């Protein structure tokens, strides 16, 4: 039984300048305990897909099941099971780190004492203990990102959605994040659905990659399989494969007329 499955999931935004088809029908499945890397160029529709899977945005087409609950019929059931770390975070700069962590616990219906204890625990796990009494607005970019991640872990979700979690982290913090994600999977069999633009991260962390472009899935498989299939040579990098798949950066040869 997959923990996430989508069929034809689509979202069109209506704008003043006409409709924008951000996601055009995504079919994918994720197994329990899997770490899935969701890759694609800027504007491919990654964030939009995540916002649909996390109940924030109603799809304009298709259906999905997340952690055993139907997205359209039981969004509340989905919310109880998932954690979401948005691409641009979600803390109020005027509120203290501790208050945000405790409030998040309370929003997930932990008791007062429980929420306070959980805040301490998360702070330890994400190296935020020293910063607990600071305002969120007074954190560095990477510190804030760690706080965002802590917020998403509050209720030990079954499925964790991370939208570019490592953007802005220094190499050490990034390595720590990878370890944390692996540990969450090992200890809690958590399923992790993450987007990233760092291909080394995708390769090191994800069991399987799904590459989207223009709102549809254009390739999927393990990093090794993608390299073998699209990279062009046995020692190709994931970057070579990614560029071959999405056509970005490799446009020159196509642009020139083949014959006159």
């Amino acid at each position, binding site marked *: 039984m997959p923990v996430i499955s989508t069929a034809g999931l689509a979202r069109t935004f209506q704008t003043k300048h006409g409709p924008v088809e951000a996601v055009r029908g995504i079919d994918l499945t994720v197994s329990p305990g899997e770490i899935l890397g969701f890759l694609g160029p800027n504007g491919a529709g990654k964030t939009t897909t995540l916002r649909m899977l*996390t109940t924030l945005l109603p799809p304009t087409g298709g259906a999905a099941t997340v952690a055993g609950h139907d997205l359209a019929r039981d969004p509340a059931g989905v919310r109880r099971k998932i954690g979401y770390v948005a691409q641009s975070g979600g803390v109020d700069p005027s509120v203290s780190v501790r208050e945000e962590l405790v409030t998040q616990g309370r929003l997930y219906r932990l008791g007062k004492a429980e929420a306070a204890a959980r805040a301490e625990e998360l702070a330890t796990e994400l190296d935020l203990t020293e910063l607990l009494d600071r305002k969120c607005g007074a954190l560095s970019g990477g510190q804030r990102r760690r706080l965002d991640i802590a917020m998403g872990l509050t209720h030990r979700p079954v499925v964790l959605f991370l939208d570019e979690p490592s953007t802005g982290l220094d190499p050490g913090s990034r390595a720590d994040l990878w370890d944390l994600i692996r540990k969450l999977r090992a200890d809690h069999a958590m399923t992790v659905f993450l987007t990233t633009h760092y291909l080394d991260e995708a390769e090191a962390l994800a069991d399987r990659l799904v590459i989207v472009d223009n709102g549809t899935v254009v390739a999927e498989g393990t990093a090794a399989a993608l390299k073998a299939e699209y990279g062009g040579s046995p020692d190709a990098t994931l970057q070579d494969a990614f560029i071959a798949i999405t056509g970005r950066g490799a446009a020159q040869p196509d642009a020139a007329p083949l014959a006159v």
Partner: protein
Amino acid sequence: MSNLLSDTGLIFGRYLRQALNSKVAVVFGLLQPMFYLVFFGPLLHDVPLGGEGDSWQVLVPGLLIQLGLFSAAFAGFGILLEKQFGVIERMRVTPVSRLALLLGRALKDVVQLLVQSLVLVIAGVALGLRAPVLGVVVGFVFVGLLTISLASLSYALAMRVDSPQGFAPVISTVNMPAMLLSGVLLPMALAPGWLDAVSRCVPFRYLVDAVRAAYVGDYAWDTVGLGALVGLALCAVSMTVGTRVFRKAGA
């Protein structure tokens, strides 16, 4: 149900703490009605206002409604900021009751408005206002009703628009005529027939009239009763709109 109550309490506490941390804003909100009270109130002293009671009993109720009209209607501004920070989506992805996200905020606005109203009334008393305690309490109840209604509408609008530019002009455009037409500064009893007729289409007028009646100890059906009816209807409509918007995703 118990989830709704505890979630509402949680949200209420969060925003009350924020209000306490920004006392400047709370004081600032009081400035405008205070100016009217001190710099405009004395002018009315010997002017025949066509009703019972002295000029303070006419002006202070009007200023209370004006305070509610302006503070509560702009309550949604906070949500616009929170949207930019991602706080709204972060909360919406948790199981928290959608209604609590609205109620908790609106209740905080009620508390804030009541404190501001109390300060305004005390200042009025210092300047010469005399009114029955029951009447003053009734006035506060009306301020509460007005606040919860307008705050709900304001939060709903803020959830639907993308930018402050889409928000502030709407509120100002609605508020200014609403304030003038409800006879906040001078009673509509002084108005020519057509203006009086137009003002009867503005719900806030009935609240102003009701509070003025209460301030002279008149609790009759056709003043306080009518005001209560209009206030409750306004509240019911606004809460319905607000709840709808907060329930629906995609905002």
